[in-house]
């Protein structure tokens, strides 16, 4: 961790979001604030005692409706590093299987002292429902196909760590895989277009449905603070001269749903293997949100190659989540009145 000189003229950006459910409401200065706070959190992780008392006595509850050990453990580690008390609910063993509604579960958890609720759910939009009935802060750990804000932010942080000057403007980022069903892709669209990157989304036509229309809507710079992006099924065009190559998981269910002929065919045409990745820049990095299906969307040798920063993503994930838990916990009282967004 390099010496940090007092940031004499840093802009005074505060944090006023009571929840973080989607990155669509986060402005670029706020993203910069998250990045700087993550720098500090990484510093804490480098210390002999990797813990600070910032969230001492606060209760962080993880409510995961979808099984996910890695993400849940990442959030819990982040919470513990800030000295928070952690409670984990994974629905396989809870009353949810007895048919308890989301609203009732959230109210119960609040009565049990939950202050920050980290949620993962299979249905898009579920965290907004939780936020409507929850008096504390909701941090979205992934909802359906919609959003995965902490993933997009840790992806952004990792890219900035590996690109000169930490500047993504004009840098080509290729995301390859099942874009249609990917909350990681959707959140990355918001953050990377805000960062000024040259974003390319690539996958088979059946898994890109609707993305063309989205790209067309944004092509004229219609959304303030966000640029355009590209959608293609031509993997060579997507990867050529890319600075960042990101693979997304392909799920077996897509085959059953009639969207893919076979995983073998996907691998033959879209797998990130050494040959394809060599189309990217020589110092391009390879990323993946995990867990990986090695041999399907990514070749095993590429996953562990020198260009791969996949394990950095995991480490950065803890730091980003520490930063967000810290910022949310301190969110201004005034923010409590706003409509859950």
């Amino acid at each position, binding site marked *: 961790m390099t*010496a*940090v*000189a*007092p*940031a*004499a003229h*840093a802009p*005074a*950006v*505060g*944090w*006023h979001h009571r929840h973080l459910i989607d990155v669509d409401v986060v402005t670029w200065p706020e993203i910069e*604030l998250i990045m*700087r*706070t993550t720098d*500090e959190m990484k*510093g*804490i992780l480098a*210390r*002999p*005692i990797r*813990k*600070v*008392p*910032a*969230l*001492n006595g606060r209760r962080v509850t993880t409510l995961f409706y979808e099984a996910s050990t890695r993400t849940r453990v990442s959030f819990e580690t982040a919470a513990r590093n*800030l000295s928070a008390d952690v409670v984990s609910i994974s629905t396989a063993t809870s009353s949810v299987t007895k048919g308890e509604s989301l609203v009732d579960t959230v109210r119960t958890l609040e009565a049990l002292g939950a202050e920050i609720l980290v949620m993962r759910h299979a249905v898009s939009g579920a965290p907004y429902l939780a936020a409507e009935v929850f008096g504390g802060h909701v941090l979205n750990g992934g909802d359906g196909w919609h959003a995965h804000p902490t993933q997009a932010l840790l992806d952004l942080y990792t890219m900035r760590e590996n690109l000169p000057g930490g500047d993504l403007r004009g840098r080509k980022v290729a995301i390859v895989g099942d874009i249609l069903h990917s909350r990681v892709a959707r959140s990355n669209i918001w953050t990377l277009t805000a960062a000024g990157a040259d974003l390319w989304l690539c996958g088979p036509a059946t898994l890109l449905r609707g993305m063309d229309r989205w790209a067309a809507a944004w092509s004229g710079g219609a959304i303030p603070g966000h640029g355009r992006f590209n959608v293609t099924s031509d993997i060579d065009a997507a990867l050529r001269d890319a600075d960042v190559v990101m693979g997304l998981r392909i799920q077996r269910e897509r085959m059953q749903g009639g969207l893919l002929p076979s995983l073998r065919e996907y691998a033959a045409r879209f797998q990130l293997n050494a040959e394809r990745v060599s189309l990217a820049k020589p110092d391009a990095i390879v990323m993946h949100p995990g867990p990986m299906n090695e041999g399907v969307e990514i070749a095993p040798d590429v996953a562990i190659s020198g260009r791969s920063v996949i394990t950095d993503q995991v480490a950065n994930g803890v730091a980003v989540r520490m930063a967000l838990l*810290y*910022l949310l*916990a*301190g*969110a*201004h*009282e*005034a*923010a409590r009145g706003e409509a859950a967004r």
Partner: protein
Amino acid sequence: MTDRQIMTGDEIRRAIVRISHEIVEKQAGTKGLALVGIQRRGVPLARRIADAIEEHEGMRLPVGALDITFYRDDLSLVAEQPMVKGTDLPFDLNGATVVLVDDVLYTGRTIRCAMDALIDFGRPRAIRLAVLIDRGHRELPIRADHVGKNVPTSREEIVHVHVAEFDEVDEVSIARQLPASDASGAGDR
């Protein structure tokens, strides 16, 4: 709302020179000493003290910066001031005699946080405290070993320390607090 100047640039300079002598006197030398400035304005003050000690003892003491943002017990400030300024301790704390340096000593809470933070980094042999201004109203049993100036104040007043490194001038002034602002705001030390 007029600011009342209570220390000029020259007075600050003299106080720093005096404090630097006191620190060395108390230690009977410079051995084992290290200066740690508390972000933000404690940091340039710590540097100036180190400069003064170097001048009269010929010895450059290690200087570090300590950010206590994550050790505060009150998160309500995060919304307005989440900006973290950075901790840098480029020396081994274990066995060192650390002199914490801050601009204003008030309730003592900042110093308590600073001691917690410091101890997470290592085990100093001793911790001492040097402040430019002691304005009274302690809420914790904390006292400074070295004080630039004792200034009795009321709770409605704010002490502003300006240092050339950030503020273009060196001076200390007192202002009456505007009624609308939260009394537990930036001034709470």
